[in-house]
């Protein structure tokens, strides 16, 4: 699929060679600010590879790596305000981390503990959404609530390229468009939906074009360019906050890893495609840019990585030390007030758990 198209804007400011376009928006020329974002990206990458290792050693369940998505994730979160609401897909835990969800919570979730979705902060953000694309509708609903109460908040749904084939995605854009709801639909186009390449997903020349029929704006950005991602998200959020309605933001990147830890992408895609994508990945160019501004070097990176690793180790220890959820908890969280019929079933389940321990 082409990056550029006559009627869809395509944003890229930080080029793959590390040069920042002189036309880059004002407010993106402070290299220290970019360095802050880069540190977040690094943290996400280290966390992600740690999570994969935990799965490989039997300490975590199936895990969907976000390897390659870091600029997109950090950029989306950086443009959002604290009071906004995120409705994420299962892969975009990196955005959640940047929003304040803790590493231990993310690990709990993928370790099979429902308490991982009971975030200490941000309380209003939505949990991971597993049924593809349905979070787009939930985000439209959150935006409806903000509009209803006259609040200056926005909802952000993050969806995948494959997710743009679901009816729910179109329906969400349509309802949001007609009511000018303050919501941004982010599509992280990482070129693959499990084994299906985006070319087998749609004949639309870009995914951003899918906005047109809903009467809303569609825009594309280089999802490996932290400056462009943050900027187009800021524009879309500002417009939504002012009553200008929803935007579809397509972030073009690449899923450098397997679909999940139980997938082997080698079964269905060519290594040279992955190699090409690896040359364009977000860290290389950001690192080059920061080095050209003399504010980043290998030594600083090593120091930062060490600090990251320590934080992540602490979170992992915290996760591993969390006592397992008790059987009764499953029942306790079913309803605000437990129906009598469930009381008996809870007693029964506790009984069998106790027998198992004998």
């Amino acid at each position, binding site marked *: 699929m082409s990056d550029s198209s006559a009627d869809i804007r395509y944003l890229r400011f930080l080029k793959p060679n590390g040069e920042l376009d002189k036309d880059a928006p004002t407010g993106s020329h402070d290299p220290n600010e970019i360095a802050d974002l880069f540190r977040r990206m690094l943290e996400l990458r280290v966390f992600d590879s740690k999570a994969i290792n935990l799965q490989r050693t039997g300490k975590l*369940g*199936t895990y969907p790596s976000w390897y390659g998505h870091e600029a997109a994730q950090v950029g989306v979160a950086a443009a959002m305000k604290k009071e906004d609401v995120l409705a994420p897909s299962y892969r975009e835990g990196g955005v959640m981390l940047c929003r304040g969800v803790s590493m231990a919570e993310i690990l709990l979730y993928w370790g099979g503990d429902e308490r991982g979705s009971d975030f200490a902060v941000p309380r209003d953000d939505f949990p991971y959404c597993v*049924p593809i*694309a349905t979070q787009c509708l939930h985000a439209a609903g959150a935006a409806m609530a903000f509009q209803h109460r006259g609040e200056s908040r926005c909802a952000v749904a993050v969806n995948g390229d494959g997710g743009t084939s679901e009816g729910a995605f179109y329906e969400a854009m349509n309802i949001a468009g007609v009511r000018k709801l303050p919501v941004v639909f982010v599509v992280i186009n990482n070129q693959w939906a499990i084994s*299906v390449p985006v070319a087998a997903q749609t004949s639309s020349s870009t995914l951003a074009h899918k906005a047109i029929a809903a009467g809303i704006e569609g825009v594309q950005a280089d999802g490996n360019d932290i400056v462009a991602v943050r900027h187009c998200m800021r524009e879309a959020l500002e417009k939504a906050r002012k009553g200008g309605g929803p935007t579809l933001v397509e972030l073009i990147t690449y899923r450098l890893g397997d679909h999940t830890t139980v997938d082997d992408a080698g079964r269905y895609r060519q290594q040279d495609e992955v190699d090409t994508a690896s040359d364009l990945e977000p860290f290389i160019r950001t690192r080059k840019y920061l080095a050209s501004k003399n504010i980043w070097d290998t030594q600083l990176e090593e120091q930062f990585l060490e600090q990251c690793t320590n934080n992540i180790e602490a979170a992992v220890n915290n996760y591993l030390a969390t006592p397992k959820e008790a059987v009764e908890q499953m029942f306790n969280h079913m309803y605000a007030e437990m129906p009598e019929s469930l009381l008996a079933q809870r007693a029964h389940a506790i009984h*069998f758990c106790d027998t198992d321990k004998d």
Partner: protein
Amino acid sequence: MAQLSYREAVSAAISQEMRLDDRVVFIGEDVAAAGGVFKTTEGLQAEFGPVRVRDTPIAEQAILGAAMGAAMTGLRPVAEIMFSDFFAVCWDIVVNQIAKTRFMSAGQCSFPLVIRSANGGGARFGAQHSQSVENWAMAVPGLKVVAPSSPADVKGLLAASIRDPDPVLFFEQKSLYGTKGEVPDGECVEPLGKAKVLREGSDVTIVGLAAMVPKALKAAEILQDKHGISATVIDVRSLVPLDTTTIFESVSATGRLVTVEENPRLCGWGAEVSSLVAEELFWDLEGPIVRVTTPHIPLPSADALEDAVLPSVDRIVENVVRLAD
């Protein structure tokens, strides 16, 4: 006889039928190039090509809606819904359309199609990837509902489902995919709507489906060895049509019925079987009918919790012992 896994039996059945009938086509998400996320359909695209074996965009309504239209115009589609939980995003096509249109067209339209799906728990996949939803399908007039427990039944019953002139929802239990068993060589077709008696006993009838069948068999062994209780074990195999003849015959003889279902407590298929037995065989019963089910909660992803709520061998044994006392 060849040893096949439950997973291999799926592609064995589809390829058997595709070779015999060129109207049979197969569509779904990640089914073609990747051979299915559970590797159930490996090799099909290589053998039958990209026209008969297609990957679809991620759109379950499109998969089932297209299967419906194609079935109405001369194809015999086999469609895959990757996880049965996602029937929930395309249920309109199943319930309002596929199941009703023969009735609403006075028999003019027919739906020789099969919808296969990975169903049930035990794989630590969490609340939205582990549901046992064969009871949803059973509640809809117009559908046939099949759920095999062994590789031989996967092959035979899937082949029969593909040949059947009516729509069949075919539930594969994902925790059974790795299990192996003897599958007859050559063309293999097992009639739909027949339960199978897997073990004969005189004290109690245990009726199970899919992953509950091997558990019921194990429980029956323990009951015999440790408690001197002799149990019949019946694999229901098909919920619609339901083989009441086989079930009634056995319960008449033993006087006791225990159903073992993975469905959440309310309105699981065992409730229907129990109600039929209560109505028809009340005077033959020597004790209350007992249902062993998952509690009325979604399945958790944590292994210990999932094990705690899915019916276990121990739970079956304890319930039967209590009933037989």
